[in-house]
């Protein structure tokens, strides 16, 4: 009996996690470079009340036993790395990655972090930085008097100076790719960190032979959250929560009746 109560409670907990995950997805529906997450569930262990194959009599065995499950748990919420929509911004330092790969930025701690959000800016020394001020890695500096800035699909950053016809190269943006991007650790601010599960980054030039995507200047990648999908999930999750609460109620009623047996 306690089993039913705890199974239902585990179901309610799991649905709560689901709703929290949906809420975060919807809240980030307008975050550039955001990737939606999807919660995954698993059934818990089973109690074998009657073991399959146990002897029923001296000559026969139980063909299948009685297994009672103990509920569910949220096991992971993996990042869905599908491409988001592109929106044109005409900002020369906005870039999208068409395909796999992450921009690398250097955090103040000296550690590299990885991001899909290609909204970059220049800081007061002319270096390309992300909206939080983290330096793009490898660092690229644009002189103050540069007129136009062009980023090629292979990541080559070039600019022209006043009075010069030829473009100057400032450097080449390198992208990182991971064997298992779902294993990356989200650290907020649209940044990811490498883990043992993600494997070490494979660094390559955009559009190169290493399988990383190419760059497109002047666009921003929208989040890949589908509002319709999230709302459908929300309805399903809410109903499942309700069903589990009904089990709690039924179990409680049964208990009450057992208690009433003794008059």
């Amino acid at each position: 009996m306690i089993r039913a109560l705890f199974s239902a409670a585990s179901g309610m907990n799991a649905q709560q996690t689901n709703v929290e995950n949906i809420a975060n997805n919807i809240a980030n529906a307008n975050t550039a470079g955001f990737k939606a997450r999807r919660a995954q569930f698993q059934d818990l262990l089973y109690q074998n009340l009657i073991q399959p194959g146990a002897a029923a009599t001296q000559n026969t065995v139980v063909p299948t036993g009685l297994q009672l499950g103990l509920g569910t748990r949220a096991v992971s919420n993996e990042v869905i790395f599908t491409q988001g929509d592109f929106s044109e911004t005409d900002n020369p330092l906005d870039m999208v990655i068409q395909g796999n790969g992450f921009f690398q930025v250097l955090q103040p701690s000296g550690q590299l972090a990885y991001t899909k959000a290609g909204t970059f800016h220049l800081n007061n020394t002319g270096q390309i930085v992300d909206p939080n001020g983290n330096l793009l890695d490898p660092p690229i500096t644009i002189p103050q008097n540069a007129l136009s800035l062009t980023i090629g699909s292979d990541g080559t950053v070039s600019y022209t100076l006043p009075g010069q016809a030829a473009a100057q190269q400032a450097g080449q943006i390198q992208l990182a790719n991971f064997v298992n991007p779902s294993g990356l650790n989200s650290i907020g601010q649209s940044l990811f960190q490498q883990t043992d599960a993600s494997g070490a980054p494979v660094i390559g030039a955009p559009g190169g032979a290493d399988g990383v995507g190419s760059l497109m200047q002047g666009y921003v990648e929208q989040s890949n959250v589908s509002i319709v999908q999230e709302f459908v999930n929300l309805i399903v999750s809410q109903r499942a929560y309700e069903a589990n609460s009904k089990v709690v109620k039924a179990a409680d009623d049964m208990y009450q009746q057992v208690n009433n047996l003794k008059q």
Partner: protein
Amino acid sequence: MDQISVLAAAGMQSRMQSLDLVANNLANSSTGGYKSDGEFFTLFSSEAAGEDASGPSSVPMIQRQWTDFGQGLLEPTNNPLDFGLSGKSFFVVQGPSGPLYTRNGNFRFNNTGALVTNEGYPLLQQNGQPFKANTAQPLQVSLDGEINQNGGSIGRIKLAEFHNPTDLTKYGANYFTNSTGQEPMDATGSQIYQGKIEASNVSASHGAVRIVGLSRQFEMMQKAITISNDMGKKAIEEVAKV
């Protein structure tokens, strides 16, 4: 104890176990690849039942559960590493102590490029080996389970089908184990849909109806015990009055 109380108490106990099953089903209504459980009632007959003709000597009990292996809905997820399975077969993964079977087609790459489950158990290909994929390249899965990368095949997903899937035992974490040792057959008529995942086949409305039924049956049996107690009380207090 009198017959009515024994019978009704056994009935109450088995309804409680039924509710346990319903609770687990509903708790897993969002678990990918989960298969709902039902119960099989039987009559437990005591040894004396054959000789004793004075009344019922058998009580209801749940003998075993059965698992509904019906197809769950294939939900689109847009994740290229989600494989939705239609048909009667199972994915085969290499568990820590032998093969495990699952309908949950949510895989990911591990850091060596093998397709693994959430626990890190590798998905097996037809030849019994884990896959080795180039994770930088997109991956296409055909309906018959052939995985293609860069225009070439890197192997075919192994699917197992069981003559009698009720012999499979639930292992937890969406896995089944083959408890009776029957040889799995090659899959026939199963198809793999990339970018979809098979949802749990638990029907919430069915669960709700079951809860109502169980609650009412439980109530009736509780009433039966109360009436039986009253009868006993009357018999002792009033019949024996001198």
